């Protein structure tokens, strides 16, 4: 019997799950990414590389900030440019705005309905928990306001330019964001407490599989980092086994194309093993955030899940801690007087070269790799995006969980719901990964 769940809902993009079941045992699971491949890596060829920044942002309608930053960093790496300090601070603030919006979107709208109103989605949540929704909207709106102020637009910002940023921050805008940000932090603490309590009350971590894998992410001297640092690889036992500069990613990451998915499956080139990225990887790798409230929640989380944690549900709680950290970091940057400096652009001259830009997108390690000619026109592009790196282990987990549930006699439609909940913990962004999920159970070929 073949069962197909299509599309998986409350994620970003089009994905299906195909289960092949024989004698009540799952023989095979395929995560079919059916999101239309847009083939950015090819059509960016021949374009002036500075235009790639705004083009690449359109890879993702949620983590556009991360794509813009990875793109400009690849360019700056190829042209050997260092932006002024204030420009870096503005970019970090923009990045924090992106995280606040993306994490709040996932925690409230994509993940919470599974716990509070299963099967009813955001519409159910809005009707049954209007106060909760108002809080989540208030927080996410702040993220979008930060992006609009710094980036010029709330979605697909336009101010990221080679050598820095195209517009400074005004004193009035800074006051507005600071004042609002402090209120937002209070609300976020209430919401995160609520989420931690829910997890404790319903013992939700037990719902998710434990799946030991390697982890990859940025970390700076033990501190959680999202914009710039060396990549670290942690083994399933929790030891850091490799530290390398992003420009050497080809030596560490390989990927295979598969006949049944538009997304390629990456693995560690050094040993062929699966690895994961994103919130769980980042909190496994980091020792601290460096902001007081996030560190308090981080300590609490670590006391619950340990280090390393292989629990897929911990992705959600780690996301909650990062939400707090992003707001705190935004406030820290806004309080720094240097953020108002007008010195935000370095002199730039195109030249031939190869550049790699790595950032932590909300969903994990994001790599842009460009080769440009002496006029600064793109010759070749390679992209490794966050979500695709989690798909191989996701597939293994779905296989294990489906088998486990079927052996306990759980009916198929419930199995489908469970599988979707696991998918959602990763907050997959499929349009990113191809550069969606339906529960349509098709019982055929019995």
């Amino acid at each position, binding site marked *: 019997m073949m069962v197909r769940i299509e599309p998986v809902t409350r994620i970003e993009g089009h994905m299906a799950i195909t289960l092949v079941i024989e004698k009540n045992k799952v023989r095979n699971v395929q995560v079919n990414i*059916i999101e*239309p491949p847009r083939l950015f890596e090819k*059509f960016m060829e021949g374009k002036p590389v500075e235009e790639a920044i705004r*083009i690449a942002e359109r890879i993702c*309608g949620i983590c556009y900030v991360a794509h813009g930053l990875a793109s400009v960093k690849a360019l700056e790496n190829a042209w050997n440019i260092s932006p002024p300090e204030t420009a870096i601070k503005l970019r970090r603030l923009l990045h924090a705005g992106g995280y606040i919006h993306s994490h709040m979107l996932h925690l409230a709208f994509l993940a919470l309905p599974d716990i509070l109103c299963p099967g009813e989605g955001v519409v159910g949540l809005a009707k049954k928990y209007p106060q909760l929704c108002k809080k989540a909207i208030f927080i996410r709106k702040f993220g979008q306001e930060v992006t609009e102020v710094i980036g010029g637009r709330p979605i697909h910002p336009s101010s990221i330019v080679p050598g820095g940023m195209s517009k400074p921050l005004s004193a009035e805008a800074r006051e507005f964001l600071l004042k609002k940000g402090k209120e937002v932090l209070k609300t976020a603490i209430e919401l995160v407490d609520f989420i931690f309590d829910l997890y404790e009350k319903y013992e939700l971590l037990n719902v998710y599989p434990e799946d030991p894998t390697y982890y990859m992410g940025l970390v700076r001297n033990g501190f959680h980092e999202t914009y710039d640092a060396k990549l670290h690889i942690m083994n399933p036992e929790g030891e850091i086994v490799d530290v390398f500069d992003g420009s050497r990613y080809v030596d560490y990451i390989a990927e295979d194309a598969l006949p049944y998915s*538009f997304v390629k499956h990456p693995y560690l080139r050094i040993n062929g093993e699966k690895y994961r990225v994103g919130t769980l990887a980042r909190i496994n790798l980091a020792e601290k955030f460096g902001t007081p409230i996030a560190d308090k929640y981080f300590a609490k989380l670590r006391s619950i899940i340990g280090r390393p944690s292989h629990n897929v549900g911990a992705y959600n709680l780690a996301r909650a801690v990062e939400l707090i950290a992003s707001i705190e970091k935004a406030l820290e940057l806004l309080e720094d007087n240097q953020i108002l400096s007008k010195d935000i652009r370095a002199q730039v001259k195109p030249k031939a070269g190869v550049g790699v830009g790595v950032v932590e997108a909300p969903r994990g390690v994001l790599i842009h790799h460009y080769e440009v000619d002496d006029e600064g026109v793109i010759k070749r592009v390679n992209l490794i995006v966050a979500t695709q790196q989690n798909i191989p282990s996701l597939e293994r987990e779905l296989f294990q969980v489906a088998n486990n549930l079927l052996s306990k006699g759980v009916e198929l439609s419930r199995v489908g719901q469970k599988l979707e909940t696991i998918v959602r913990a990763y907050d997959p962004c499929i349009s990113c990964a191809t550069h969606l999920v339906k529960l349509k159970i098709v019982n055929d070929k019995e």
Partner: protein
Amino acid sequence: MKKIAIISLMSDGGCHIAFLDIHEELLQLLNQVDLVHSYMTVDRKDIPYNIDIALIEGGVRTTHDIELLKEARSKAKILVAMGSCACFGGIPGLSNLYDLTSSLNYVYRETPTTIKGVIPHENVPNVIRVAPISRYVKVDFQIPGCPPESKEIKDALVSLLKGEIPPQPTKTVCDECKLGPPKKKPKRLRRIYEPPEPNTCLLEQGYFCMGSVTRAGCGAKCPHAGIPCDGCRGPAPKALDQGASILNALITLAYENIKEFSLKRHSAYFYRYSFASSIIEDLIRKRLVEKK
């Protein structure tokens, strides 16, 4: 209650986010209408019958997109193209300038990190040329933009729910921009890695600014942030073809400065969002049909 559905084809989900970005008003809206399908927020997998308004996010890239689109059309009274991918093909339309097989080969077989390469073909739909949705179904209303302004989406919905046709902007981004219009010819062409002079029209300074041929409605956000308009809202009402219109303007303004023209390169400026609905694309398609 009126039924609304958001149906997603080839897209990055940004229009969905623009819809959610009406923020507090979302809760109000959800009390007034029945949002019956939206893969990002609603659990329902199928597209129900008797939809009042279907908002289509994304253009056509696969045979699966065509099926979904036709199903949406057959079940909806009013079908709206939301965003520039649905309206014009959007940025992925740039892919139409590259041979599809070699593009697939590059992405799935030849990138520096790919070890085992294969073009996906099992349990996945066929990949075809990028197209705006109007090539396959009748479109009742367009809300262009990458993404559209959140307020535009909400206002259009409110009008359509009342049975009215929403007003469309008649001006250009240039009309909304406090820097323009150009007062003199540019001395030379510039690229955006060079910082512009403040308070001066970007086209006049020699940047490829698309404001004069692009439909208004965003308030000229990009030029006001110091970056040329990249034309994300598609052709202005009087412009038949966005790229041809800006070329026409540039021939008048900067004839001496344009030494060479390469479609693959300059499409990044002139046709970033609208190549799949351009006159050139029509010619290519005609040629492809004749070949067959």
